[in-house]
């Protein structure tokens, strides 16, 4: 992997996505109601929920093949279990380490030691997109080394408070024989479903160039990430989600590794307002997204997707 291809600049980004008549992220503590900030009524979508979607999208698009394997998998996406095309690193764990600084003989057969632990880490980073991007806790070595990925996401929060509706639905069949008997052959059960009529959510993310150097996160990987953020909901259709979609991706590209401006200033430049405050929003068109170009300092480029 050549050095020029690694991500050399800092990026900060804002993802705007919306939901129509669906449940973007259920709260396991509240019987799967949409997550809500109880104090303000704003809807929440956790960082891990969005990362799951990115992983699923990359898994589908790149067919789980190295170097774009996905380590943390969901069964629904997984179709092939045998991973091919591992990068061969030439470590024979049965023979003494090649590099004498790692020790003259192997302390325990079949276990890496010394720099080999780093090589195992490198191997994982090279083969798995999600480890390279988001990092992972790896149990290589004695003290469970960690890989810190360059990409960091935050909780997404709705622009306005959301309401969640409860719908009762019926099913014209029952699961078990006993249930049918209890109902005298009526064979109907009731279920519940929760939706948000409309919610526009805003999430913030960061890409750290120095950490990209450590995990080998390349420009191509970054391009894939933008692609995944834009299309992550297109392949995540289900009965619960309703209509979800990424509406806008704002990327602030700094001209240097460390960045050229404070991130809050950049994020504040993007303002979202409800056009008609007297009635609730039901569509993306009910909002105006404005960018205050004057607030973006020199050395930072705004890319809209």
């Amino acid at each position, binding site marked *: 992997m050549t050095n020029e291809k690694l991500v050399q600049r800092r990026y900060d980004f804002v993802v705007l996505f919306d939901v129509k008549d669906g449940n973007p992220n259920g709260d396991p*503590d509240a019987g799967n109601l949409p997550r809500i900030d109880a104090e303000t009524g704003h809807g929440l979508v*956790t*960082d*891990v929920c969005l990362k799951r979607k990115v992983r699923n999208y990359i898994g589908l698009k790149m067919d789980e093949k190295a170097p774009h394997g996905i380590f943390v998998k969901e069964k629904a996406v997984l179709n092939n279990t045998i*991973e091919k095309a591992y990068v061969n690193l030439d470590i024979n764990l049965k023979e003494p380490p090649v590099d004498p600084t790692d020790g003259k003989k192997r302390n325990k057969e079949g276990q890496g030691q010394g720099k080999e632990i780093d090589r195992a880490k490198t191997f994982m980073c090279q083969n798995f997109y999600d480890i390279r991007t988001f990092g992972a806790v*790896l149990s290589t070595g004695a003290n469970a080394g960690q890989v810190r990925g360059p990409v960091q996401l935050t909780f997404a929060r709705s622009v306005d408070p959301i309401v969640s509706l409860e719908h009762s639905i019926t099913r014209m069949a029952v699961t078990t024989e006993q249930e049918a008997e209890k109902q005298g052959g009526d064979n109907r059960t009731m279920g519940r479903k929760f939706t948000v009529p409309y919610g526009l959510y805003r999430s913030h993310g960061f890409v750290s160039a120095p*950490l990209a150097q450590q995990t080998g996160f390349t420009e191509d990987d970054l391009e894939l990430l933008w692609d995944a953020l834009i299309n992550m909901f297109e392949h995540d259709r289900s009965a619960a989600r309703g209509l979800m979609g990424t509406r806008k991706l704002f990327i602030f590209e700094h001209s240097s590794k460390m960045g050229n401006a*404070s*991130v809050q200033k950049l994020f504040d430049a993007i303002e979202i307002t409800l056009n008609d405050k007297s009635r609730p929003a039901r569509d993306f068109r009910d909002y105006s997204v404005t960018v205050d170009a004057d607030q973006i300092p020199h050395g930072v480029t705004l890319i809209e997707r």
Partner: protein
Amino acid sequence: MNLHNWCLEVCGDYACFTRPEMKVERVSYDVMTPSAARAIFESILWKPAIRWNVTRIEVMNPIKWISVRRNEVGKTVPAPTAKQMAGVAVAPMGIFIEDERQQRAGLFLRDVRYRIHAYFDFVPPSEHKTNHSSEFWADEQEQTEIVRFDETAAKYAAMFERRAKKGQCFHRPYLGCREFSCDFRLIDDLTVEVARPIDETRDLGYMLYDMDFDRNADDPPALFFRAQIENGVMNTDRRQIEVRG
């Protein structure tokens, strides 16, 4: 040797400074820990030549809580086997989240704002602990020359100040967990921007001070101190308080 104190104002929507005794279903401390504050300074600038010391944490916003339950994975990634590395089709690598699922609630802080004060100790190059074995160096001359005599604390102080002023960072700093990213701002002049911390004085009990990497870098023991906030200010200066471990 230490130069003057720096003060950063940090704020974020959420924070979780997990109590070590309640880390399965995470419960945050009421206030940021010194170790989390140190990590924020380090995310802006850290080199082997400097060691950050947090002296004071001022709590600017009232302490508020939120509970969030998430699906998490209860497994760490196993090291790849030799066969896997060699590309032989053996057991698949990867974790299936349905099999390794843990639902964990977390009690996090919300809408936090702190002012954190710190200075750094300058570690002269001759005292750096390096992992480099003798084979790392081409010859002895290179090894001795790497101990540069133009190294000064002022250099790092200027670097930090430049970065912090511009909002630059090595990686995005966060409040306890990476999903709770935070913004930071260098307070230039403490006499102009006087802190108005919350009006609260109470004993917070024993709190994690930091991990003691000096004693054992691989498996550092934890250090604790008796945390107190007095009118919203927590004194974390190791030269003044007792730190036990």
